[in-house]
């Protein structure tokens, strides 16, 4: 048996695999729900991406290929971000609903490992879903994607995911503090990112103060970089302007997310909110 630090590390890695394992079981058990949600996401993404052709049909003078691809990237990244936030928020909300929250939070599993486990699963699940979504929606349009650097796009999305998880940890604490309103507050934070990050339009069209806010949103850099990778075929070597801010935001948001979650957990333990619903 490993001793000391090795034993602790082994214990934590097994714990992390348990978080991942549980989410795999849940996906398997809720597979029809997942499929229905995926079909809904495809439909929702299509309604956004068809806007490009709609504007042209209404007489607008636009580059339909460009706008359609930009909207597609925006919609896919937005769907990915939604999945990351949803899974991290479920760290508390779903467990509270099922009644398992007390058992999970009294297990000898460190909170960072617990949250990283949720984050790791969210990335794997989200990336698979984003690739499928991109592929299915792209089939509906006559897009020229021959020059796209998909590998660079996926690596950039992974780098951006670190920041998304940090922010997700902060929103995950909301249902812990407020069982009734916490999840909705999480949606609010997600909505603010949607507005300021240039998901469907360039950030330059926003009022100045919103443009300033967009510089601290990791989604802004993720979207810029992904559009360059898909439309221009830019590789990672050309993405320094996007990668470095993402690394920096990730380096700040992960520790900050852990601290915020810890404060929220202490608050919940002080006020008796670390318990099941009903």
């Amino acid at each position: 048996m490993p001793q000391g630090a090795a034993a602790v590390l082994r214990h934590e890695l097994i714990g992390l695999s348990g978080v991942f394992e549980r989410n795999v079981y849940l996906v398997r058990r809720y597979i029809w729900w997942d499929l229905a949600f995926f079909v809904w996401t495809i439909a929702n993404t299509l309604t956004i991406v068809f806007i490009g052709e709609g504007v042209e049909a209404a007489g607008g003078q636009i580059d339909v290929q460009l706008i359609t691809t930009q909207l597609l990237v925006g919609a896919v990244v937005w769907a990915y971000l939604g999945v990351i936030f949803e899974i991290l928020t479920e760290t508390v909300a779903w467990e509270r609903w099922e009644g398992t929250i007390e058992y999970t939070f009294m297990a000898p599993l460190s909170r960072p490992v617990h949250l990283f486990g949720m984050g790791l699963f969210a990335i794997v699940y989200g990336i698979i879903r984003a690739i499928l979504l991109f592929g299915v929606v792209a089939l509906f349009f006559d897009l020229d994607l021959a020059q796209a650097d998909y590998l660079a796009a996926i690596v950039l999305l992974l780098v951006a995911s670190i920041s998304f998880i940090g922010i997700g940890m902060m929103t995950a604490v909301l249902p812990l503090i407020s069982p009734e309103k916490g999840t909705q507050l999480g949606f609010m934070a997600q909505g603010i990112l949607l507005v300021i990050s240039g998901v469907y339009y360039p950030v330059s069209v926003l009022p100045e103060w919103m443009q300033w806010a967009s510089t601290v949103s990791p989604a802004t850099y993720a979207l810029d970089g992904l559009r360059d990778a898909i439309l221009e075929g830019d590789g990672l070597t050309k993405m320094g302007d996007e990668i470095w801010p993402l690394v920096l935001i990730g380096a700040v948001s992960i520790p900050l997310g852990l601290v915020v979650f810890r404060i929220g957990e202490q608050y919940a333990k002080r006020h008796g909110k670390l318990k099941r619903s009903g």
Partner: protein
Amino acid sequence: MTHSNNHNSTPAVVVDGLRKEFFRNDGREGLRRRRKRVAALDGVSFEMRRGETLAILGQNGSGKSTLVRLLSTLLLDDGGSAHVFGHDVSKETRAVRRLINRVSVEASFFKKMSAVENLSYAARFYGMPIRETRERIPEILGRVGFPRERMGEPLEDMSRGMQQKVALARALLTAPILLLLDEPTTGLDPRSKLEVQKFIREIREVHDATVLLCTHDLVEAEELADRVGILDRGRLIELAPAAELKSKYEAATLEAAFFAATGKAFEDEPAEEED
């Protein structure tokens, strides 16, 4: 999974002047909601020796669940202290969590998942790898009387009695040396209740576990526990073997002793509110 023998000489549980308060709504003052502090536990003190079974009796709202949740590291106290095998439950949460497990009145699971799935991921949280649980989970489910052919079925399709057996298996799987049982047989049919009680005896005898049992069932308390504590409005007003309590209050039954000690019948009061 084994625990250190260092715990042999240390008392299993030492609770000293433990206090926990919650806010409760107390009407309105204009537009502002007025709140008052209510003590859920008010200076509770007791010790448990290793291997002992202690039953805590009390009406709803007496503080039983608050006590269990404090010992489970799910609450922070507002005064006093609690130690599990020498570890402070507020400051050494990780050490305490390795030693304890719990079964509560609600068999809390991901209900769409099977017994094996629920137990598998839970065991991982306690550092048990797949090769250890692959055989251990079916074995332990078999021991609590869970039918092998139903191990892969979603728990939502099973009775409460069956779910509670899985809850016991989950607790036992991690080999806790302190088992916290919060009304584990409430709402079960008589047969399931007897099976769960039989298993609690086995846990104590075979696994040398210390058991804190919070219950509404006075017969259960008398049969299973070495000592019985009476918790009334957050205060531990009695703690003695059942026979001693009956003798002290010249009561024929534990229920009569409870009535004499608290001045109340053993029936429900409003449930504990926490905020």
